[in-house]
């Protein structure tokens, strides 16, 4: 779960150290002044905490009123100095947690979060109650076949593609600082040329790879076949594009999930469980030279290619499959 804390106090983070150590949740901390901007870029389902220590009455009331009107989020109040006089009223207004002096000192535990989610799940359960009759269009916030209907600042379901070059130390050594940038630029160009015909957009480029977004219409996911081809053509690409006398190696992960959409370069403030998931899968789970899809995409693997995907275990509770590799 995404935990987003708004606090201007240095020691607030300590209160969440057990959660961070447990690695089941992702914790982000921002200044209280950024609350509206950050929340508007935060995926629904996140847990938001607001630290009211030393915050003047007007600012605190405004922030709490803003949070109480949000839909699709849980929120809690951090108040180690007991500023809030009527705690119960905050729960009546929709708060899911209250961190007083003692809890603040001891720190929040994973168990507490579990209880909190169970407590506030009433709303969620009401929605899920319809799940039996739920269609795919209700499960996803469809972004469409292409980008024409995608608006800035809105949340959508996208297919996320993570691709990163392997053997990075060797690449640095081989190309040297003078030529490494050029090589990486050409790799990014190759990726761009590969994904753009199927509406893929390089969304978050990083040193040795990129996160790519594909609009999703619930009918199909062409990215699977494109990534399949990228793995099959690894030798051809190595020989033709890089003339490097060494086989290029990259790992790919595809995942289906939600995020607020902002254009490339303006994504710094987005909080999304799906983005974290795809980065974690790419960086901590994927093996060199392999291509994985997460469970959400299994049904979109083209029929005949399904047997070319092998169960590859779970990561952070998410089932995956791996493409069989060409020899």
């Amino acid at each position, binding site marked *: 779960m995404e935990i987003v804390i708004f606090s201007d106090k240095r020691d607030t983070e300590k209160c969440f150290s057990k959660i961070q150590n447990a690695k089941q949740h992702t914790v982000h901390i921002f200044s209280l002044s950024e609350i509206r901007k950050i929340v508007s870029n935060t995926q629904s389902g996140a847990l938001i905490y607001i630290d009211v220590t030393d915050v003047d009455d007007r600012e605190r009331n405004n922030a709490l009123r803003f949070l109480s009107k949000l839909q699709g989020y849980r929120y809690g109040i951090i108040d180690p100095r007991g500023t809030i006089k009527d705690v119960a009223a905050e729960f009546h207004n929709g708060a899911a947690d209250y961190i007083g002096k003692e809890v603040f000192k001891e720190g929040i535990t994973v168990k507490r979060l579990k209880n909190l989610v169970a407590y506030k799940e009433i709303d969620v359960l009401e929605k899920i109650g319809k799940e039996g009759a739920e269609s795919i269009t209700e499960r996803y916030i469809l972004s469409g076949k292409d980008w024409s209907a995608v608006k800035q600042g809105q949340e959508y379901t996208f297919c996320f593609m993570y691709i990163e070059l392997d053997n990075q130390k060797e690449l640095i050594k081989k190309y040297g600082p003078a030529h490494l940038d050029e090589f990486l630029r050409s790799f990014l160009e190759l990726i761009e040329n590969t994904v753009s015909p199927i509406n893929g957009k390089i969304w978050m480029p990083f040193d040795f790879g990129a996160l790519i977004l594909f609009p999703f219409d619930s009918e199909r996911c062409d990215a699977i*076949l494109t990534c399949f081809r990228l793995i099959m053509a690894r030798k051809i690409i190595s*020989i033709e594009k890089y003339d490097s006398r060494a086989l290029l190696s990259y790992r790919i992960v595809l995942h289906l999930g939600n995020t607020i959409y902002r254009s490339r370069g303006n994504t710094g403030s987005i909080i999304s469980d799906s983005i974290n998931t795809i980065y974690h899968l790419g960086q901590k789970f994927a093996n060199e030279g392999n291509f994985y899809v997460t469970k959400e995409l299994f049904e979109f693997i083209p029929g005949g290619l399904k047997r070319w995907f092998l169960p590859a275990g779970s990561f952070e509770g998410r089932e995956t499959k791996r493409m069989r590799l060409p020899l």
Partner: protein
Amino acid sequence: MCMLLRGNLFICAVKALTESMNVETMTILAQKLISDYNLHERTGYPERIPIPNKEAARQIVTDIRDNNIFPQFVNLLIEIHYYGLMGRRYPVAYLRDLVNGLHDFGFIYDTENRMFIEDSRMRKSRNWGVLREGEEYVFTFLRLDIVGSSILVRTNKNEVIQSTYAHLRDIVQKAIDARNGRIWIWEGDSGLVAFHFLNKNLLATLSAMEILHELFIYNQTRCKLDKPLLVRIAIHMGPLEYTNNEEEMKKSEIIKKTIDIEANYTKPNTVTVSNLVYPLLDPLILGNQLQPIRVDDKTTYYSYELRWES
């Protein structure tokens, strides 16, 4: 090509000759491109009367234009500019303008073969816009044949056959277009593709690999035949006197040999690379990708197939 030599480009070519060499040298150049070329005959000047420099250049460029060999002419100017003619280099004026003029008309310079060829993004002709009928060149050939085509035709509906074979042709076309190959013969269930420029052996082999890969995906995702569509592909190289006549082509030894390699030494869904092509390939392909096929005591071919981890 006649349209090429109008206005500025024509004037530019005349000036390039006039300002860079004497009449004797420009005549030698013309004779390299047009056999038995006689400048006196062409201009009407008697043998004993010297032809003025400018007039000679104008006549030669006109004849070059009328013979549709302007790219070859600029090739020759590049050669004498950079490498010389009979031991002497001739700095050619306006060379950059001539090269740019050719670019504008869809020709690019192939550094490996040191000649202009048509830019396949703008135009695709069977002879790359420059090969001349009756002249011998070295080509690499890709021969492809559908396995068991006659049975497929008997056991599948005609429209399924038509669309499947059309898809195969699309797959082949896409693979070779990216590598400057040209389909010379296509007979529905078989074809012959020629490669002449750049690293032709490598490009032909990579095209064949891509065709196998794409066919695998096609079979898994779209093929409507009662069984997968399989092909045999052979890659071979050698000299051939260029001709536009397909029947003449088929009679040539090199093409017969390529067809023989495909028909007799290639298993379904594999590519066989001939003994002449193999040594000229990239070590990355050679690695463990190509398996030897013993033909006789002296000859070994090599086979590529798509293999998967189990």
